[in-house]
Protein backbone atom coordinates (compact mmCIF):
# COMPACT_ATOMS: atom_id res chain seq x y z
CA UNK A 1 0.00 0.00 0.00
CA UNK A 2 2.58 2.53 1.04
CA UNK A 3 4.70 1.95 -2.05
CA UNK A 4 1.77 2.81 -4.31
CA UNK A 5 1.24 6.03 -2.36
CA UNK A 6 4.89 6.96 -2.74
CA UNK A 7 4.85 6.51 -6.51
CA UNK A 8 1.95 8.93 -6.94
CA UNK A 9 2.72 12.39 -8.30
CA UNK A 10 3.76 15.10 -5.85
CA UNK A 11 0.47 16.99 -6.14
CA UNK A 12 -1.60 14.00 -5.06
CA UNK A 13 0.65 13.42 -2.06
CA UNK A 14 0.25 17.01 -0.94
CA UNK A 15 -3.56 16.83 -1.13
CA UNK A 16 -3.47 13.66 0.92
CA UNK A 17 -1.46 15.44 3.59
CA UNK A 18 -3.80 18.40 3.72
CA UNK A 19 -6.70 15.99 3.96
CA UNK A 20 -5.19 14.41 7.09
CA UNK A 21 -4.48 17.90 8.37
CA UNK A 22 -8.09 18.82 7.84
CA UNK A 23 -9.17 15.66 9.62
CA UNK A 24 -6.90 16.52 12.58
CA UNK A 25 -8.31 20.01 12.57
CA UNK A 26 -11.85 18.72 12.82
CA UNK A 27 -11.05 16.05 15.44
CA UNK A 28 -8.91 18.54 17.35
CA UNK A 29 -11.70 21.06 17.67
CA UNK A 30 -14.24 18.43 18.60
CA UNK A 31 -11.89 17.52 21.45
CA UNK A 32 -11.04 20.97 22.80
CA UNK A 33 -14.26 22.72 21.74
CA UNK A 34 -16.49 21.82 24.70
CA UNK A 35 -13.78 22.73 27.20
CA UNK A 36 -13.04 26.03 25.48
CA UNK A 37 -16.78 26.81 25.47
CA UNK A 38 -17.12 26.16 29.22
CA UNK A 39 -13.96 28.10 30.06
CA UNK A 40 -15.24 30.99 27.97
CA UNK A 41 -18.53 30.89 29.79
CA UNK A 42 -17.28 30.67 33.37
CA UNK A 43 -13.94 32.47 33.13
CA UNK A 44 -13.42 34.61 30.02
CA UNK A 45 -16.86 36.25 29.85
CA UNK A 46 -16.94 36.93 33.61
CA UNK A 47 -13.56 38.69 33.37
CA UNK A 48 -14.74 40.88 30.48
CA UNK A 49 -17.98 41.52 32.30
CA UNK A 50 -16.16 42.61 35.44
CA UNK A 51 -14.36 45.14 33.30
CA UNK A 52 -17.62 46.55 31.90
CA UNK A 53 -19.40 46.56 35.25
CA UNK A 54 -16.53 48.51 36.78
CA UNK A 55 -17.49 51.46 34.55
CA UNK A 56 -21.14 51.40 35.56
CA UNK A 57 -22.93 52.67 38.63
CA UNK A 58 -24.66 49.35 39.12
CA UNK A 59 -26.40 47.78 42.07
CA UNK A 60 -27.66 44.25 41.77
CA UNK A 61 -31.20 45.29 40.78
CA UNK A 62 -29.89 47.55 37.97
CA UNK A 63 -27.93 44.68 36.45
CA UNK A 64 -30.88 42.31 36.73
CA UNK A 65 -33.14 44.85 35.01
CA UNK A 66 -30.89 46.45 32.38
CA UNK A 67 -28.08 43.94 31.81
CA UNK A 68 -25.15 45.80 30.29
CA UNK A 69 -27.21 48.85 29.33
CA UNK A 70 -26.49 50.92 32.43
CA UNK A 71 -24.87 54.33 31.84
CA UNK A 72 -21.07 54.49 31.84
CA UNK A 73 -19.16 56.41 34.48
CA UNK A 74 -15.73 56.68 36.07
CA UNK A 75 -17.16 57.16 39.56
CA UNK A 76 -16.32 53.65 40.75
CA UNK A 77 -12.64 54.17 40.01
CA UNK A 78 -12.54 57.65 41.50
CA UNK A 79 -14.33 56.47 44.64
CA UNK A 80 -12.14 53.41 44.99
CA UNK A 81 -8.85 55.20 44.46
CA UNK A 82 -9.70 58.07 46.82
CA UNK A 83 -11.00 55.99 49.72
CA UNK A 84 -8.48 55.49 52.50
CA UNK A 85 -9.76 52.00 53.23
CA UNK A 86 -8.71 50.88 49.77
CA UNK A 87 -5.07 51.89 50.09
CA UNK A 88 -4.89 50.42 53.55
CA UNK A 89 -6.24 47.11 52.25
CA UNK A 90 -3.66 47.14 49.45
CA UNK A 91 -0.88 47.70 51.97
CA UNK A 92 -2.14 44.86 54.17
CA UNK A 93 -2.44 42.61 51.11
CA UNK A 94 1.13 43.35 50.03
CA UNK A 95 2.55 42.67 53.50
CA UNK A 96 0.49 39.48 53.75
CA UNK A 97 1.50 38.28 50.27
CA UNK A 98 5.22 38.98 50.62
CA UNK A 99 5.51 37.46 54.11
CA UNK A 100 3.57 34.29 53.33
CA UNK A 101 5.25 33.76 49.96
CA UNK A 102 8.75 34.04 51.42
CA UNK A 103 7.82 32.14 54.57
CA UNK A 104 6.14 29.19 52.90
CA UNK A 105 8.85 28.79 50.27
CA UNK A 106 11.67 29.01 52.83
CA UNK A 107 10.00 26.51 55.15
CA UNK A 108 9.19 24.15 52.29
CA UNK A 109 12.78 24.34 51.05
CA UNK A 110 14.32 23.62 54.45
CA UNK A 111 11.88 20.74 54.98
CA UNK A 112 12.74 19.21 51.60
CA UNK A 113 16.48 19.51 52.31
CA UNK A 114 16.10 17.97 55.76
CA UNK A 115 14.26 15.02 54.25
CA UNK A 116 16.56 14.54 51.30
CA UNK A 117 18.43 11.55 52.70
CA UNK A 118 16.42 8.41 53.18
CA UNK A 119 15.51 7.51 56.75
CA UNK A 120 13.03 5.21 58.37
CA UNK A 121 9.52 6.67 58.29
CA UNK A 122 10.36 9.26 55.64
CA UNK A 123 7.46 8.21 53.40
CA UNK A 124 4.90 8.60 56.19
CA UNK A 125 6.39 11.89 57.32
CA UNK A 126 6.30 13.25 53.77
CA UNK A 127 2.65 12.26 53.41
CA UNK A 128 1.82 13.82 56.79
CA UNK A 129 3.47 17.11 55.82
CA UNK A 130 0.90 17.56 53.09
CA UNK A 131 -2.05 17.43 55.47
CA UNK A 132 -2.39 21.21 56.01
CA UNK A 133 -2.52 21.70 52.24
CA UNK A 134 -5.12 19.02 51.42
CA UNK A 135 -7.41 19.41 54.44
CA UNK A 136 -10.48 21.66 54.03
CA UNK A 137 -9.63 25.27 54.85
CA UNK A 138 -12.79 25.64 56.94
CA UNK A 139 -11.79 22.78 59.22
CA UNK A 140 -8.20 23.90 59.78
CA UNK A 141 -9.24 27.52 60.25
CA UNK A 142 -11.66 26.53 63.04
CA UNK A 143 -9.11 24.33 64.75
CA UNK A 144 -6.69 27.25 64.79
CA UNK A 145 -9.41 29.53 66.11
CA UNK A 146 -10.18 27.07 68.88
CA UNK A 147 -6.51 26.58 69.78
CA UNK A 148 -5.94 30.34 69.89
CA UNK A 149 -9.07 31.23 71.84
CA UNK A 150 -8.15 33.61 74.71
CA UNK A 151 -10.29 31.78 77.30
CA UNK A 152 -10.02 28.05 76.67
CA UNK A 153 -7.58 27.73 73.75
CA UNK A 154 -4.69 25.38 74.40
CA UNK A 155 -2.03 27.84 73.20
CA UNK A 156 -3.12 30.53 75.64
CA UNK A 157 -3.56 27.98 78.42
CA UNK A 158 0.04 26.91 77.86
CA UNK A 159 1.23 30.50 77.74
CA UNK A 160 -0.40 31.29 81.08
CA UNK A 161 0.68 28.03 82.68
CA UNK A 162 4.28 27.72 81.48
CA UNK A 163 5.38 31.06 80.04
CA UNK A 164 4.03 33.28 82.79
CA UNK A 165 1.58 35.30 80.67
CA UNK A 166 -0.80 37.37 82.80
CA UNK A 167 -3.75 36.39 80.67
CA UNK A 168 -4.61 34.91 77.28
CA UNK A 169 -3.72 36.87 74.15
CA UNK A 170 -6.48 37.61 71.68
CA UNK A 171 -4.39 36.43 68.71
CA UNK A 172 -7.08 36.93 66.10
CA UNK A 173 -8.86 39.99 67.49
CA UNK A 174 -6.11 42.50 68.26
CA UNK A 175 -3.61 44.44 66.21
CA UNK A 176 -0.83 43.64 65.43
CA UNK A 177 -1.22 40.00 66.51
CA UNK A 178 -4.04 39.30 64.07
CA UNK A 179 -2.07 39.98 60.89
CA UNK A 180 0.95 38.07 62.21
CA UNK A 181 -1.30 35.13 63.11
CA UNK A 182 -2.98 34.89 59.71
CA UNK A 183 0.47 35.04 58.09
CA UNK A 184 1.69 32.17 60.28
CA UNK A 185 -1.47 30.20 59.45
CA UNK A 186 -0.99 30.78 55.73
CA UNK A 187 2.66 29.68 55.91
CA UNK A 188 1.56 26.57 57.80
CA UNK A 189 -1.07 25.81 55.19
CA UNK A 190 1.04 26.38 52.08
CA UNK A 191 4.59 25.29 52.95
CA UNK A 192 3.62 21.73 51.81
CA UNK A 193 3.01 23.07 48.31
CA UNK A 194 6.59 24.36 48.12
CA UNK A 195 7.83 21.26 49.90
CA UNK A 196 6.61 18.80 47.24
CA UNK A 197 8.07 20.93 44.44
CA UNK A 198 11.48 21.11 46.13
CA UNK A 199 11.38 17.40 47.03
CA UNK A 200 10.75 16.50 43.38
CA UNK A 201 13.48 18.83 42.14
CA UNK A 202 16.02 17.56 44.69
CA UNK A 203 15.36 13.97 43.63
CA UNK A 204 16.21 14.89 40.08
CA UNK A 205 19.48 16.57 41.10
CA UNK A 206 22.72 14.84 40.15
CA UNK A 207 24.97 14.29 43.17
CA UNK A 208 28.20 14.37 41.14
CA UNK A 209 28.79 18.08 41.59
CA UNK A 210 28.19 17.87 45.32
CA UNK A 211 30.61 15.01 45.70
CA UNK A 212 33.21 16.94 43.74
CA UNK A 213 32.63 19.91 46.05
CA UNK A 214 33.14 17.69 49.09
CA UNK A 215 36.40 16.37 47.66
CA UNK A 216 37.47 20.00 47.22
CA UNK A 217 36.86 20.56 50.93
CA UNK A 218 33.59 22.51 50.83
CA UNK A 219 31.72 22.78 54.12
CA UNK A 220 28.08 21.65 54.26
CA UNK A 221 27.00 25.29 54.36
CA UNK A 222 29.04 26.11 51.24
CA UNK A 223 27.59 23.06 49.54
CA UNK A 224 24.08 24.22 50.37
CA UNK A 225 24.64 27.84 49.40
CA UNK A 226 26.93 27.53 46.35
CA UNK A 227 26.03 24.14 44.88
CA UNK A 228 22.44 23.17 45.68
CA UNK A 229 20.64 26.52 45.93
CA UNK A 230 21.76 27.85 42.52
CA UNK A 231 20.38 24.69 40.93
CA UNK A 232 17.08 25.25 42.74
CA UNK A 233 16.67 28.78 41.40
CA UNK A 234 14.21 27.85 38.61
CA UNK A 235 11.95 26.15 41.17
CA UNK A 236 12.21 29.11 43.55
CA UNK A 237 11.30 31.53 40.75
CA UNK A 238 8.32 29.41 39.65
CA UNK A 239 7.03 28.94 43.19
CA UNK A 240 7.37 32.64 44.01
CA UNK A 241 5.28 33.44 40.97
CA UNK A 242 2.57 30.89 41.76
CA UNK A 243 2.37 31.76 45.46
CA UNK A 244 2.29 35.51 44.78
CA UNK A 245 -0.65 35.18 42.40
CA UNK A 246 -2.56 32.79 44.64
CA UNK A 247 -2.01 34.75 47.86
CA UNK A 248 -2.62 38.23 46.51
CA UNK A 249 -6.32 37.54 46.00
CA UNK A 250 -6.76 35.03 48.80
CA UNK A 251 -10.15 35.28 50.44
CA UNK A 252 -11.21 32.30 52.53
CA UNK A 253 -8.34 32.01 54.99
CA UNK A 254 -8.61 35.54 56.34
CA UNK A 255 -12.38 35.70 56.07
CA UNK A 256 -12.67 32.57 58.20
CA UNK A 257 -10.03 33.48 60.79
CA UNK A 258 -10.73 37.16 61.45
CA UNK A 259 -13.45 38.27 59.02
CA UNK A 260 -11.09 41.09 58.05
CA UNK A 261 -11.06 42.66 61.53
CA UNK A 262 -8.12 43.97 63.56
CA UNK A 263 -6.00 45.20 60.66
CA UNK A 264 -6.37 42.13 58.46
CA UNK A 265 -8.74 43.45 55.81
CA UNK A 266 -7.05 42.22 52.65
CA UNK A 267 -8.30 43.33 49.25
CA UNK A 268 -10.33 40.20 48.49
CA UNK A 269 -12.26 40.44 51.76
CA UNK A 270 -12.99 44.08 50.98
CA UNK A 271 -14.37 43.14 47.56
CA UNK A 272 -16.57 40.52 49.20
CA UNK A 273 -17.94 43.06 51.69
CA UNK A 274 -18.74 45.51 48.89
CA UNK A 275 -20.49 42.77 46.99
CA UNK A 276 -22.65 41.35 49.77
CA UNK A 277 -22.73 44.08 52.42
CA UNK A 278 -23.69 47.03 50.26
CA UNK A 279 -24.36 45.02 47.06
CA UNK A 280 -22.37 47.69 45.23
CA UNK A 281 -21.41 45.62 42.19
CA UNK A 282 -19.81 48.50 40.31
CA UNK A 283 -17.45 49.32 43.19
CA UNK A 284 -16.60 45.67 43.73
CA UNK A 285 -15.79 45.28 40.03
CA UNK A 286 -13.64 48.41 39.91
CA UNK A 287 -11.82 47.16 42.98
CA UNK A 288 -11.20 43.78 41.30
CA UNK A 289 -9.91 45.39 38.12
CA UNK A 290 -7.49 47.60 40.04
CA UNK A 291 -6.31 44.54 41.95
CA UNK A 292 -5.70 42.68 38.71
CA UNK A 293 -3.72 45.64 37.37
CA UNK A 294 -1.61 45.90 40.53
CA UNK A 295 -0.97 42.17 40.38
CA UNK A 296 -0.02 42.36 36.69
CA UNK A 297 2.43 45.21 37.40
CA UNK A 298 3.92 43.25 40.29
CA UNK A 299 4.32 40.14 38.15
CA UNK A 300 5.82 42.11 35.28
CA UNK A 301 8.39 43.70 37.58
CA UNK A 302 9.15 40.33 39.16
CA UNK A 303 9.73 38.68 35.78
CA UNK A 304 11.93 41.53 34.61
CA UNK A 305 14.09 41.32 37.74
CA UNK A 306 14.47 37.54 37.55
CA UNK A 307 15.33 37.76 33.86
CA UNK A 308 18.01 40.36 34.53
CA UNK A 309 19.40 38.32 37.42
CA UNK A 310 19.62 35.14 35.35
CA UNK A 311 21.28 37.09 32.51
CA UNK A 312 24.05 38.49 34.72
Amino acid at each position, binding site marked *: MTTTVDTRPAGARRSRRTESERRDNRAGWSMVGPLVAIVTMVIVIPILWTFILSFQDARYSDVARNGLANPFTLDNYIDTLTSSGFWESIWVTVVYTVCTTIGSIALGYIAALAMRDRFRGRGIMRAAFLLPYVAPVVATAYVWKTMLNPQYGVINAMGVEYLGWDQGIDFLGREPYALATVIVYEIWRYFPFAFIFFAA*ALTGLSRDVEEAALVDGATPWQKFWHVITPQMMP*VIVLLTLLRMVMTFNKFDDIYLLTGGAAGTEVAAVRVYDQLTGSSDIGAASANSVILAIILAIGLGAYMKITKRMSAS
Partner: protein
Amino acid sequence: MTMISFQTTLFRVLKWVFLALLALTVIFPFYYMVVMSFVPIQDLLREPLTLVPEIQQLTVETYRQVVAPESEGGFGFARFMRNSAVVATAATLLTMVLAIPASYAMTRMRFAGSKKIGALFIAVYMFPQIIIAVPVFVGFQILGLGTSLVGLTIAYIALTVPVSVHMLRSYLRGIPESIDEAAMIDGATRWQIMRKITVPLAMPTIISTALYSFMIAWNEFLFALLFLSAKPELWTVSLGLTRLADGQEVSRTILMAGSVLITAPIILLYGLVERWLTEGLTAGAEKG
Protein backbone atom coordinates in the same frame (compact mmCIF):
# COMPACT_ATOMS: atom_id res chain seq x y z
CA MET B 1 38.68 20.07 58.25
CA THR B 2 37.37 20.72 61.78
CA MET B 3 35.00 23.29 60.28
CA ILE B 4 33.56 20.60 58.05
CA SER B 5 33.04 18.06 60.80
CA PHE B 6 31.68 20.75 63.15
CA GLN B 7 29.13 21.88 60.56
CA THR B 8 28.23 18.32 59.62
CA THR B 9 27.42 17.49 63.25
CA LEU B 10 25.62 20.78 63.81
CA PHE B 11 23.43 20.36 60.73
CA ARG B 12 22.64 16.77 61.62
CA VAL B 13 21.40 17.82 65.07
CA LEU B 14 19.53 20.84 63.72
CA LYS B 15 17.92 18.71 61.06
CA TRP B 16 16.31 16.34 63.55
CA VAL B 17 15.26 19.15 65.89
CA PHE B 18 13.71 20.96 62.95
CA LEU B 19 11.90 17.90 61.62
CA ALA B 20 10.53 17.04 65.05
CA LEU B 21 9.23 20.56 65.59
CA LEU B 22 7.73 20.75 62.13
CA ALA B 23 6.03 17.38 62.47
CA LEU B 24 4.57 18.53 65.79
CA THR B 25 3.28 21.79 64.27
CA VAL B 26 1.75 19.99 61.31
CA ILE B 27 0.10 17.14 63.18
CA PHE B 28 -0.90 18.79 66.46
CA PRO B 29 -3.91 20.76 65.09
CA PHE B 30 -5.35 17.57 63.60
CA TYR B 31 -4.78 15.66 66.82
CA TYR B 32 -6.38 18.48 68.80
CA MET B 33 -9.36 18.53 66.44
CA VAL B 34 -10.00 14.80 66.94
CA VAL B 35 -9.51 14.86 70.72
CA MET B 36 -11.73 17.89 71.24
CA SER B 37 -14.48 16.33 69.16
CA PHE B 38 -14.71 13.46 71.67
CA VAL B 39 -14.63 15.32 75.00
CA PRO B 40 -17.65 16.97 76.60
CA ILE B 41 -17.61 20.76 76.29
CA GLN B 42 -17.57 21.31 80.09
CA ASP B 43 -14.27 19.43 80.32
CA LEU B 44 -12.71 21.60 77.63
CA LEU B 45 -13.80 24.81 79.35
CA ARG B 46 -12.71 23.64 82.80
CA GLU B 47 -9.40 22.02 81.84
CA PRO B 48 -8.14 23.50 78.56
CA LEU B 49 -4.74 21.86 79.01
CA THR B 50 -5.96 18.26 79.01
CA LEU B 51 -4.50 16.92 75.78
CA VAL B 52 -4.77 13.24 76.60
CA PRO B 53 -8.24 12.73 78.07
CA GLU B 54 -9.22 9.67 80.13
CA ILE B 55 -11.07 6.94 78.29
CA GLN B 56 -14.20 7.28 80.45
CA GLN B 57 -14.27 11.00 79.68
CA LEU B 58 -14.85 10.40 75.97
CA THR B 59 -18.24 10.77 74.38
CA VAL B 60 -19.72 10.26 70.92
CA GLU B 61 -22.79 12.31 71.82
CA THR B 62 -21.28 15.29 69.95
CA TYR B 63 -21.21 13.34 66.70
CA ARG B 64 -24.78 12.15 67.13
CA GLN B 65 -25.87 15.75 67.55
CA VAL B 66 -23.85 17.01 64.56
CA VAL B 67 -25.12 14.41 62.12
CA ALA B 68 -28.80 14.34 63.17
CA PRO B 69 -31.22 16.49 61.13
CA GLU B 70 -32.54 19.73 62.61
CA SER B 71 -35.97 18.16 63.15
CA GLU B 72 -34.35 15.85 65.72
CA GLY B 73 -32.47 18.66 67.43
CA GLY B 74 -29.25 18.06 65.48
CA PHE B 75 -27.24 20.20 63.08
CA GLY B 76 -27.97 18.42 59.80
CA PHE B 77 -24.40 17.55 58.86
CA ALA B 78 -25.44 14.38 57.06
CA ARG B 79 -27.29 16.57 54.58
CA PHE B 80 -24.34 18.96 54.13
CA MET B 81 -22.12 16.00 53.38
CA ARG B 82 -24.58 14.61 50.85
CA ASN B 83 -24.78 17.99 49.07
CA SER B 84 -21.02 18.31 48.97
CA ALA B 85 -20.61 14.76 47.71
CA VAL B 86 -23.11 15.36 44.90
CA VAL B 87 -21.58 18.67 43.80
CA ALA B 88 -17.99 17.49 44.05
CA THR B 89 -18.68 14.25 42.18
CA ALA B 90 -20.61 15.98 39.41
CA ALA B 91 -17.98 18.69 39.00
CA THR B 92 -15.21 16.08 38.89
CA LEU B 93 -16.93 13.91 36.28
CA LEU B 94 -17.69 16.91 34.08
CA THR B 95 -14.14 18.18 34.43
CA MET B 96 -12.71 14.83 33.39
CA VAL B 97 -15.07 14.43 30.42
CA LEU B 98 -14.02 17.87 29.21
CA ALA B 99 -10.35 17.87 30.16
CA ILE B 100 -9.22 14.45 28.94
CA PRO B 101 -10.03 14.91 25.22
CA ALA B 102 -8.84 18.50 25.34
CA SER B 103 -5.52 17.56 26.94
CA TYR B 104 -5.09 14.77 24.42
CA ALA B 105 -5.66 17.13 21.49
CA MET B 106 -3.41 19.81 22.97
CA THR B 107 -0.45 17.48 23.45
CA ARG B 108 -0.40 15.70 20.10
CA MET B 109 -2.51 17.36 17.45
CA ARG B 110 -1.77 20.44 15.41
CA PHE B 111 -4.94 22.24 14.49
CA ALA B 112 -5.88 25.82 13.76
CA GLY B 113 -5.46 27.83 16.96
CA SER B 114 -3.92 25.02 19.02
CA LYS B 115 -1.06 27.26 20.22
CA LYS B 116 -3.45 30.01 21.27
CA ILE B 117 -5.48 27.56 23.32
CA GLY B 118 -2.38 26.45 25.18
CA ALA B 119 -1.65 30.08 26.06
CA LEU B 120 -5.27 30.64 27.08
CA PHE B 121 -5.03 27.89 29.66
CA ILE B 122 -1.87 29.31 31.19
CA ALA B 123 -3.55 32.72 31.44
CA VAL B 124 -6.67 31.22 32.98
CA TYR B 125 -4.55 29.38 35.54
CA MET B 126 -3.29 32.76 36.75
CA PHE B 127 -6.73 34.31 37.16
CA PRO B 128 -7.84 34.51 40.77
CA GLN B 129 -11.21 33.37 41.96
CA ILE B 130 -12.32 36.63 43.55
CA ILE B 131 -12.17 38.46 40.22
CA ILE B 132 -14.50 36.06 38.45
CA ALA B 133 -16.67 35.67 41.55
CA VAL B 134 -18.50 38.99 41.05
CA PRO B 135 -19.87 38.42 37.52
CA VAL B 136 -20.38 34.68 37.94
CA PHE B 137 -22.49 35.45 41.00
CA VAL B 138 -24.50 38.17 39.25
CA GLY B 139 -24.82 36.28 35.97
CA PHE B 140 -26.04 33.10 37.62
CA GLN B 141 -28.58 35.09 39.62
CA ILE B 142 -29.97 36.45 36.35
CA LEU B 143 -30.00 33.01 34.72
CA GLY B 144 -31.80 31.59 37.74
CA LEU B 145 -28.87 29.29 38.58
CA GLY B 146 -27.67 31.46 41.44
CA THR B 147 -29.08 29.52 44.35
CA SER B 148 -28.75 25.98 43.07
CA LEU B 149 -26.36 23.05 43.22
CA VAL B 150 -26.33 22.98 39.40
CA GLY B 151 -24.99 26.53 39.27
CA LEU B 152 -22.41 25.74 41.92
CA THR B 153 -21.26 22.66 39.98
CA ILE B 154 -20.75 24.72 36.82
CA ALA B 155 -18.84 27.37 38.75
CA TYR B 156 -16.58 24.70 40.26
CA ILE B 157 -15.51 23.63 36.79
CA ALA B 158 -13.84 27.02 36.50
CA LEU B 159 -11.70 26.06 39.49
CA THR B 160 -10.92 22.45 38.63
CA VAL B 161 -10.34 22.65 34.87
CA PRO B 162 -7.11 24.67 34.70
CA VAL B 163 -5.17 22.51 37.14
CA SER B 164 -6.61 19.28 35.68
CA VAL B 165 -5.55 20.25 32.17
CA HIS B 166 -2.11 21.11 33.51
CA MET B 167 -1.67 17.74 35.23
CA LEU B 168 -3.05 15.67 32.34
CA ARG B 169 -1.05 17.49 29.71
CA SER B 170 2.25 17.09 31.45
CA TYR B 171 1.61 13.35 31.72
CA LEU B 172 0.30 12.80 28.19
CA ARG B 173 3.31 14.61 26.78
CA GLY B 174 5.42 11.71 28.04
CA ILE B 175 3.50 9.00 26.14
CA PRO B 176 5.29 8.49 22.81
CA GLU B 177 3.35 9.66 19.79
CA SER B 178 4.58 6.70 17.75
CA ILE B 179 1.86 4.61 19.43
CA ASP B 180 -0.79 6.95 18.04
CA GLU B 181 0.80 6.95 14.62
CA ALA B 182 0.86 3.16 14.47
CA ALA B 183 -2.82 3.01 15.40
CA MET B 184 -3.66 5.62 12.78
CA ILE B 185 -2.01 3.56 10.07
CA ASP B 186 -4.33 0.75 11.18
CA GLY B 187 -7.23 3.11 10.50
CA ALA B 188 -8.19 4.17 14.01
CA THR B 189 -9.62 7.66 14.51
CA ARG B 190 -8.26 10.09 17.09
CA TRP B 191 -11.25 9.51 19.39
CA GLN B 192 -10.75 5.74 19.23
CA ILE B 193 -7.04 6.05 19.94
CA MET B 194 -7.73 8.26 22.92
CA ARG B 195 -10.36 5.95 24.39
CA LYS B 196 -8.72 2.60 23.73
CA ILE B 197 -5.01 3.42 24.09
CA THR B 198 -4.28 6.72 25.81
CA VAL B 199 -6.87 6.62 28.58
CA PRO B 200 -5.85 3.13 29.81
CA LEU B 201 -2.18 4.14 29.72
CA ALA B 202 -2.84 7.33 31.65
CA MET B 203 -5.24 5.79 34.19
CA PRO B 204 -3.14 6.47 37.33
CA THR B 205 -2.80 10.13 36.38
CA ILE B 206 -6.46 10.39 35.46
CA ILE B 207 -7.49 8.98 38.83
CA SER B 208 -5.20 11.26 40.81
CA THR B 209 -6.30 14.28 38.78
CA ALA B 210 -9.93 13.38 39.36
CA LEU B 211 -9.39 13.03 43.09
CA TYR B 212 -7.57 16.36 43.21
CA SER B 213 -10.54 17.99 41.46
CA PHE B 214 -12.83 16.33 43.97
CA MET B 215 -10.79 17.78 46.83
CA ILE B 216 -10.91 21.29 45.37
CA ALA B 217 -14.69 21.12 44.99
CA TRP B 218 -15.25 19.51 48.39
CA ASN B 219 -13.06 22.09 50.18
CA GLU B 220 -14.33 25.14 48.28
CA PHE B 221 -15.82 27.95 50.31
CA LEU B 222 -16.24 31.32 48.52
CA PHE B 223 -18.63 30.28 45.75
CA ALA B 224 -20.72 28.23 48.17
CA LEU B 225 -20.94 31.26 50.45
CA LEU B 226 -21.98 33.58 47.61
CA PHE B 227 -24.43 31.19 45.97
CA LEU B 228 -26.12 29.24 48.71
CA SER B 229 -26.21 31.34 51.90
CA ALA B 230 -29.96 31.91 51.61
CA LYS B 231 -30.89 28.23 51.28
CA PRO B 232 -29.89 26.07 54.26
CA GLU B 233 -31.14 22.88 52.64
CA LEU B 234 -28.50 23.26 49.89
CA TRP B 235 -25.51 24.10 52.11
CA THR B 236 -22.28 22.25 51.47
CA VAL B 237 -19.97 21.10 54.26
CA SER B 238 -17.79 24.22 54.24
CA LEU B 239 -20.73 26.59 54.32
CA GLY B 240 -22.63 24.47 56.85
CA LEU B 241 -19.70 24.47 59.25
CA THR B 242 -19.24 28.24 58.94
CA ARG B 243 -22.90 28.84 59.63
CA LEU B 244 -22.65 26.59 62.68
CA ALA B 245 -19.70 28.63 63.91
CA ASP B 246 -21.62 31.89 63.51
CA GLY B 247 -24.38 30.65 65.81
CA GLN B 248 -23.68 31.76 69.39
CA GLU B 249 -25.15 28.70 71.08
CA VAL B 250 -23.05 26.17 69.17
CA SER B 251 -20.24 24.75 71.27
CA ARG B 252 -16.66 24.36 70.16
CA THR B 253 -16.73 20.60 70.46
CA ILE B 254 -19.59 20.50 67.95
CA LEU B 255 -17.45 22.54 65.55
CA MET B 256 -14.52 20.17 66.01
CA ALA B 257 -16.71 17.13 65.33
CA GLY B 258 -17.96 18.81 62.15
CA SER B 259 -14.36 19.57 61.16
CA VAL B 260 -13.38 15.93 61.65
CA LEU B 261 -16.33 14.81 59.51
CA ILE B 262 -15.42 17.05 56.58
CA THR B 263 -11.69 16.33 56.83
CA ALA B 264 -11.86 12.54 57.11
CA PRO B 265 -13.06 11.77 53.54
CA ILE B 266 -10.39 14.05 52.09
CA ILE B 267 -7.61 12.43 54.10
CA LEU B 268 -8.85 8.97 53.08
CA LEU B 269 -8.85 9.89 49.39
CA TYR B 270 -5.51 11.59 49.74
CA GLY B 271 -4.03 8.49 51.38
CA LEU B 272 -5.05 6.46 48.35
CA VAL B 273 -3.37 8.64 45.75
CA GLU B 274 -0.65 10.45 47.71
CA ARG B 275 2.26 9.38 45.52
CA TRP B 276 0.55 9.90 42.16
CA LEU B 277 -0.80 13.22 43.30
CA THR B 278 2.55 14.73 44.24
CA GLU B 279 4.05 13.49 40.97
CA GLY B 280 1.21 14.97 38.93
CA LEU B 281 1.31 18.35 40.67
CA THR B 282 5.04 18.80 40.39
CA ALA B 283 5.32 17.54 36.80
CA GLY B 284 7.65 19.83 34.92
CA ALA B 285 9.14 21.37 38.05
CA GLU B 286 12.51 19.71 37.47
CA LYS B 287 12.76 21.37 34.11
CA GLY B 288 11.83 24.68 35.67
